[in-house]
């Protein structure tokens, strides 16, 4: 085990997989000599050469489209979107070409799209979004949202080895603020399995990404018997873990930083409503960003992104219900 940040764990997964399998390569904007906007691939060009840390022109559809073709031909491309927001410019290749190829033609597309997401640093409307729900409406894409350094490494390695297009959402707020013990060398975490981040009996917070940390901190500060489920994967969704915890505590708060309408939380709430209605002791609640673009100015951004106090208040309300 080694202690590393969430960002270092992502780099470690990439480096380990690139050493293990020479078909793995990275492509994206400014990732080569510069090492990427967040330095995830810092030093990679020296170790693996410019061909396997391919600096692309500023053209997201070209990145995703080239990755799709290379994946079909047996490479394992890992695309970096400089910011998750920019996948909007590569969306057509992702949802119309890559996502549908196996269903339509039996052609597997083993590729990863890394998506630095999330707000909290005055990135404004185009550098702060959490676009995971966009992908959930495009069957054929797997969607991963790790919260811890260990899961960031293990899930990225699994994504690279998966024969499908995988959207890997890495919250920028976790990059340097979250640290943890991470197994050294080859390490994978299975896709599609949620994790009980904290056991409890009185209520459940179902979260992913940055909201997991908010939930854990709220539970500690409130000192209540709160269970926290870290989804880790949004597609495929671990229905069993969700339903099992909902049935156990009877009270569920779903938390994510992404906007509210038709977000991943709506799907989780729908699942609980359909399958665990009779086990509930309270309405299923959601804590999310309201349906607005992410504003720039700190007090405005603070007002829309879920904060620790919001999480504590939402938990208190549900516990008291």
């Amino acid at each position, binding site marked *: 085990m080694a202690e590393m940040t969430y960002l270092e764990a992502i780099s470690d997964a990439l480096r380990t997989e690139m050493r293990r399998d020479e078909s793995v390569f990275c492509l994206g904007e400014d990732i080569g000599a510069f090492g990427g906007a967040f330095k995830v691939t810092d030093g990679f060009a020296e170790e693996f050469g410019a061909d396997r840390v391919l600096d*692309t022109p500023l053209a997201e559809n*070209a990145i995703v489209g080239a990755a799709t*073709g290379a994946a079909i031909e047996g490479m394992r491309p890992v695309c970096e979107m400089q910011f998750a927001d920019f996948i909007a410019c590569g969306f057509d290749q992702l949802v119309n070409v890559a996502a549908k190829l196996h269903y339509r033609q039996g052609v*597997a597309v083993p590729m990863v799209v890394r998506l630095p997401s999330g707000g909290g640093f005055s990135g404004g409307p185009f550098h702060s979004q959490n676009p995971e729900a966009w992908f959930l409406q495009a069957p054929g894409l797997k969607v991963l949202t790790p919260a811890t350094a260990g899961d960031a490494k293990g899930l990225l390695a699994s994504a690279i080895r998966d024969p499908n297009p995988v959207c890997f959402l890495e919250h920028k707020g976790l990059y340097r603020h979250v640290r943890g013990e991470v197994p050294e060398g080859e390490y994978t975490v299975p896709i599609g399995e949620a994790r009980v981040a904290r056991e409890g009996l009185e209520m459940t917070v179902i979260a992913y990404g940055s909201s997991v940390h908010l939930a854990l901190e709220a539970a500690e500060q409130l000192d209540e018997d709160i269970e926290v489920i870290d989804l880790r994967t949004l597609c495929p969704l671990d229905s069993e873990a969700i339903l099992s915890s909902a049935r156990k505590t009877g009270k569920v708060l779903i938390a994510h930083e992404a906007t509210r309408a038709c977000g991943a939380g709506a799907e989780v709430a729908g699942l609980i409503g359909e399958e665990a209605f009779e086990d509930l002791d309270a309405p299923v609640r959601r804590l999310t960003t309201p349906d607005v673009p992410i504003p720039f100015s700190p007090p405005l951004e603070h007002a829309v992104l879920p904060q620790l106090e919001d999480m504590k208040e939402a938990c208190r309300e549900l516990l008291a219900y």
Partner: protein
Amino acid sequence: MTLSDASAVSDATAPVDRALLTREDRARLLRYMTMMRAAEERGLALYKQGKVPGSFYDGRGQEAIAVGAAFALGPRDRMCILHRDLGAHFVRGVTPDRYLANYMGRAGGVTGGKDGNMHFGDRQLGCVGMVSMLPDMAQVANGMALAFKMRGEPRVAMTFFGEGSTANGQWHEAMNLAGIHRLPVVFILENNQFAYSTPNELEFAVDPVQHAASYGFPGANIDGNDVEAVFEAAEVAVERAREGAGPTLIECQTMRMHGHGAHDDMSYVPDGMLEEWERRDPIERYAARLHSDFGFAEDEVAEIREQVRSYVAECAEKALASPMPEPAIATEDVFAERWEPLGDGEAPWSRWEAE
């Protein structure tokens, strides 16, 4: 890459190496073009009989492009074939029954009913099928070419698109990436004069082949209704790509002799235009040329065409006998369990016989 390189293969009247094609190759070119025409005529008839869900799209008048270009490829080369290019599927080994069954949404179609009309590619024959967003496959062809280049394999990716696609940003992204990395890719641009109803002058201000030079690779502008001219330009481009010299854009001038789809009455086509292009029909022209220039007896040419037509009729019966797919498969295979390589395509050009 300099502009003088870019003009290297742009002279459509360059002398031709006749030794590239044997007598049997020429018979095959006629056979595949005739097969495309006959299969599409049969498909249109099935559409009119109500056996084809959705609409019907063909490439009548463009047979020389699909067949001539695909004929230049070796087995391990890869293709992304578009909707006016049925002949390219046939060159690579798809049979007409599977094409017709695909149009009818049958289990025996190439996609087994998952996708329709020309949205197919047989992965076992080295093809990745198109999507409706028409420039998209140029980006995918780039990716396949990138894989070949990274692994140092002497292989080529080829794709098609119409002149309308050149108006879309993705087309320019693809040309740019191919030029930067000198990817082993061949772009076949079919200028069939209309993007649905939109004429050239409303799609672009300069002829799209001119973009090749600005992206750093050669462009050629050729007669798309001359199958040997298409083959020769494609052969030069394929070899150029295989040798590591990078991409080529080949603009083939042609005419879409039918509507965008069978529902399109073509009211926007100026009077006399279809009649003028009918006189340049690629199949009639080549049939006449086989007789006048290459020593085929008229009977021999007629027999090739008749044999193909009866083969397509047999294939149509086979397609009609194919069942509809089981509804249960509608929710299957969204995700892959494993990656498997594409298979190789057939390569009927005599050059590949020894390999």
